């Protein structure tokens, strides 16, 4: 059996496999389009609660544990939690802005947490653009220096970038930068509303032309044998699309947890299905009515996408985003339609280009 079949099984049989934990909403950068709901309040999970939670996840055979935020390193017990995750045998990913990953801290992350991957956000190919988005002057230069330091330490790093109106002119530059460092780059073509529904980030959503160029460049690279630049979004990690009765693994193979212990089906789908202050993850996983609904909705989402025929997969439909955009997890939001349209056009162009030499 291959890995894809294993993933299918986790989706089908509701085997929890990937967990994303937002340790804190504190952050040492101030990205304009950050999706965190900073107005959310509650009792933060204590470190001992995290340790119990992680142990339970390990018993449940969860493989992927992503430490996110805010800036996860800003959680005072980040290293302790990371070391515990390592001891419990998780494949640990750290989603960081990279700003504090240098010197002693970077070395300790390597030695104590030994993450499978550190995913660092890149906001542009120039200091002007990167710093404009992070709203912290000097953050670009710091990031480049820190990336080199991390690579020197032998840390495994991936760059993530969300394409925006501000950086869409620098896609090639970001690719060149990633190539120069020998790092993979994942571009997310979707700016999303904040988790509280605030649509302000959408004011810098990429243009139609920008999207088209991104998809074209991606196709070009795929054809040239250059390092792949993947186009995916937050929440897709460890969840490979496979033919199945469900549209995605949200709530079936994956969950996300916020700093206050609220459990969601996915980092993109902020529909609470339980809280770790009140229930164990085992209880939530087996008995949450909210999760049952979500699993049902992911099956219905598949029907919605399938109804779009060949254009369905191009939508990159996300029920969580649909819920944030429109309030209905089954409603195909305009951004998804636009994406499918642009991607369809690019694929059509590519097809012509590929066919050209063959036709006399």
């Amino acid at each position, binding site marked *: 059996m291959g890995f894809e079949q294993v993933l299918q099984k986790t989706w089908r049989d509701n085997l929890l496999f990937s967990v994303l934990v937002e340790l804190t*909403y*504190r952050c*040492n950068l*101030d990205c304009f389009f950050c999706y965190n709901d*900073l107005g959310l309040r509650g009792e933060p999970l204590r470190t001992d609660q995290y340790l119990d939670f992680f142990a339970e996840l390990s018993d449940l055979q969860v493989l992927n544990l992503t430490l996110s935020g805010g800036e996860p390193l800003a959680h005072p*017990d980040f290293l302790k939690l990371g070391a515990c995750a390592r001891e419990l045998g998780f494949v640990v990913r750290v989603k960081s802005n990279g700003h*504090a990953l240098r010197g002693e801290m970077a070395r300790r992350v390597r030695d104590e947490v030994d993450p499978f991957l550190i995913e660092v956000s890149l906001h542009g190919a120039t200091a002007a653009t990167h710093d404009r988005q992070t709203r912290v002057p000097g953050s670009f230069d710091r990031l480049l220096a820190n990336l080199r330091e991390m690579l020197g330490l032998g840390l495994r790093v991936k760059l993530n970038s969300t394409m925006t109106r501000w950086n869409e002119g620098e896609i090639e530059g970001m690719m060149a930068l990633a190539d120069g460092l020998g790092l993979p780059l994942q571009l997310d073509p979707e700016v999303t509303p904040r988790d509280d529904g605030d649509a302000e980030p959408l004011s810098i959503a990429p243009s139609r032309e920008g999207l088209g160029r991104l998809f074209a460049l991606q196709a070009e690279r795929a054809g040239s044998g250059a390092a792949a630049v993947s186009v995916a979004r937050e929440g897709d990690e460890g969840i490979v699309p496979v033919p199945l009765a469900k549209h995605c693994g949200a709530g079936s193979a994956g969950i996300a947890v916020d*700093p206050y212990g609220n459990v969601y089906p996915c980092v993109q789908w902020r529909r609470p299905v339980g809280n770790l202050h009140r229930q164990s993850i085992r209880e939530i996983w087996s008995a949450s009515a909210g999760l049952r609904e979500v699993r049902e909705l992911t099956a219905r989402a598949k029907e919605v996408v399938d109804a779009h025929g060949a254009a369905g997969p191009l939508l990159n439909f996300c029920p969580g985003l649909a819920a944030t955009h429109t309030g209905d997890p089954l409603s195909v939001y305009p951004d998804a339609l636009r994406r499918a349209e642009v991607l369809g056009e690019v694929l059509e162009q590519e097809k012509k280009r590929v066919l050209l030499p063959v036709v006399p």
Partner: protein
Amino acid sequence: MTFGAAFLVHPDLFPARRGGETWGAQAVTINLPGGPYRFAGLAPAQVEAVRARFGAYIKGMGDAGAAVESLVFRMAEEEVREIDTRGWEYGLDLDAAPGAVRLAGMRLAGRLDWRPGLAGSLWTPDGGSESFAGIFENFFRVLTAYRLLEQGGLLVHGAAVAAGGRSLLALGRSGAGKTTFARLALARGAEVLSDDLNALRRTGGGTVVEKLPFTGDLGDSASPAGPLPLAALLRLEKSPHDELVPLGRAEGVGLLLACSPYVNVDPHRREALLANLAALLPAAGDPPAWALRFTLGGDCWPILERQCLRSTPAAS
């Protein structure tokens, strides 16, 4: 040295935005010049500590409209440096930018952000107690300084005393005799507003002084008082004789500039500060500024009464 490194273990992780986990769900609103100031995200023990220090200035519930809002967030003990305070002079670490000010101090990290209105954020490992009151006040002083600045006023480091419904503001570098002067005035029946920090504002009737309940050696910080017309600015100088020497307007402006803590080292708000100083001292003699040369054993008060408190008509 890197900003914050003297106080924080990880200055690289200094918060860049108003986010994090608050201490609790309680809030207090404090009525100080420039306010009201509302502090939310507090734990019950923190509210107690704030009440103990600012009780008389705390407003009732539900009247916090248009308040300057601050949030109080958690920070871990392990994030703050232990400081040996023996023989050490405490000074906050400040870092100003056009739209924000960062501050670091003992057991605290703070931000003031203009988005576009002023909002404060305080991170501390203290969940309550006497030391929380101190941390809170250190943050609150900076917040007040910037709030007064944006409202055309000034937080002034100086001793203010009042007599006959008018006030004198005595300024000078550390050791110039502010507390000595305040004691002297107190002995002569004047009231000490605060011998450390006071607010200065311009009203239709002239420049006024308002006391701030921040900890000083003298002054009854427990009872609020309204604004009092400023009869004179005094530059304190210890001397073998008691005498008053008139100062020009420029000297008065320079004196205030030197005594406006936090904001006078902010390169991004220099124009605003100079504009406020010009408005607070719009003309020579409004209000008058003097150099007060005074003896420790002598008595300068009669001179002040004669020259400052009686000679100019009270602004009303």
